[in-house]
């Protein structure tokens, strides 16, 4: 089989890449190793309304819930509330990823991309020292797909970059390891996304509760890999459930790893581009990855449509992509990485003090960045290290 572009992985990054490239006229093949796109889910499913609207036409079938805002809870129980349109990238809609991911793949198919499920990439094909395609397994049968450019949209477990010589391995301090239950409980707040902080609750991470509809929520936990031990996420999540939703019934269980490494050194090689979680483009503070993945996918797909016909797919030509994403989504990823590096080492006393320092301030007027600014203003000594980051 021959085509202009192979996309490995049919999550939001892959489907947006495939759609953009196919719309611009490329012959695109998108591979998905699972037999069903979008399932099993490995995501808390929260996404910013405004950001999503700019990338795709909204369809109520893949929106589970709409939220008014976010509530942050300090280790000592003190709460602060942020309103919806300012709370940062993770508040707005809670999606149904199983439906959302497949809808995006359908968009790519409608734009002309060929989609192949239960098709797992096994390695790169090489010709004269440069990648010339992908060897794969299609429902157990071997398959070779020749293409001048390969997009690795293969998620946290990405292999495409490694095959091309890029070191994408995550250090334990650069991954949040997560577990999540879909919980049915009358106690669930259907209007707010909730974030629970504390070193006992979630070392180097947080617990979240994102509403999914009436009496339903994704209740999950992320723990920094360097602070975790075998099975810590599921153990602490069960403990949290016992303390907060003792009557809660678990309808689904999910696990996953979220890159929080900040921008990696390089996301391109001769004939290869990485996008989304494969490129470690998820946000190091929130762990949110959908919007960045979709934006990177559009950039990669449009750029591929421009470069492939000209035969310019060497690493040097692909620097356009490298530059484009680093100057856009990369800036916030870098800044939030630095902020995360600082926050993960705070004690519970520090966290309590920070939340208390917001007493009497109209926090509804803040977004995540604004919140950090006020925190720095209220705690100049403690947050001295962050001052240069938030301007």
């Amino acid at each position: 089989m021959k085509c202009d572009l192979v996309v490995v992985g049919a999550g939001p990054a892959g489907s947006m890449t495939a759609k953009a490239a196919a719309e611009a006229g490329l012959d695109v093949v998108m591979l998905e190793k699972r037999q069903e796109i979008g399932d099993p889910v490995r995501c808390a499913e929260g996404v910013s309304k405004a950001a999503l609207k700019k990338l795709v036409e909204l369809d109520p079938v893949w929106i589970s819930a709409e939220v008014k805002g976010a509530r942050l809870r300090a280790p000592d129980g003190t709460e602060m509330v942020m309103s919806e349109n300012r709370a940062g990238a993770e508040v707005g809609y809670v999606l149904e990823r199983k439906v959302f991911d497949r809808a995006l793949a359908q968009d790519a198919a409608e734009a002309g991309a060929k989609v192949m499920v239960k098709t797992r990439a096994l390695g790169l094909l090489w010709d004269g020292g440069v990648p010339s395609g992908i060897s794969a397994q299609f429902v157990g049968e071997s398959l070779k797909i020749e293409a001048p450019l390969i997009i690795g949209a293969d998620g946290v477990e990405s292999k495409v970059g490694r095959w091309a010589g890029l070191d994408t391995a995550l250090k334990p301090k650069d991954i949040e390891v997560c577990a999540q239950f879909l919980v049915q409980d009358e106690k669930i707040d259907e209007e707010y996304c909730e974030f629970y902080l504390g070193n006992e609750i979630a070392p180097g991470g947080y617990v979240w509760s994102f509403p999914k509809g009436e009496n339903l929520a994704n209740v999950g936990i992320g723990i920094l890999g360097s602070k975790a031990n075998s099975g810590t996420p599921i153990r602490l999540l069960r403990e949290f459930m016992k303390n907060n939703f003792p009557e809660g019934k678990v309808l689904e269980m999910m696990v996953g790893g979220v890159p929080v490494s900040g921008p990696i050194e390089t996301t391109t090689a001769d004939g290869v581009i990485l996008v989304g979680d494969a490129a470690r483009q998820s946000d190091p503070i929130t762990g949110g990855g959908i919007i960045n993945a979709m934006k990177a996918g559009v950039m990669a797909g449009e750029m591929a449509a421009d470069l492939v016909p000209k035969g310019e797919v060497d690493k040097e030509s692909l620097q356009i992509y490298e530059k484009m994403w680093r100057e856009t989504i990369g800036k916030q990823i870098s800044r939030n990485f630095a902020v995360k590096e600082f926050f993960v080492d705070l004690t519970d006393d520090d966290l309590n003090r920070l939340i208390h320092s917001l007493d009497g301030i109209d926090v509804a007027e803040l977004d995540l960045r604004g919140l950090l600014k006020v925190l720095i203003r209220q705690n100049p000594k403690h947050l001295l290290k962050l001052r240069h980051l938030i301007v």
Partner: protein
Amino acid sequence: MLTVNRYKCGYCGACVGVCPAAALELVETWIEVNDDCTKCGRCTKICPLGALELVKEAQT
């Protein structure tokens, strides 16, 4: 050697992402380990469900 308890594994791929030797692979619902595994144990510590374990090999 590294063992994967596939009855416990939630096939999330976090272990694959941290493996410095690229010795792990997530195939739909199970994890495969190849000979490149250096038994460093990084994956065992980060597994959300505790499905991975380094087991001492019996002397033969």
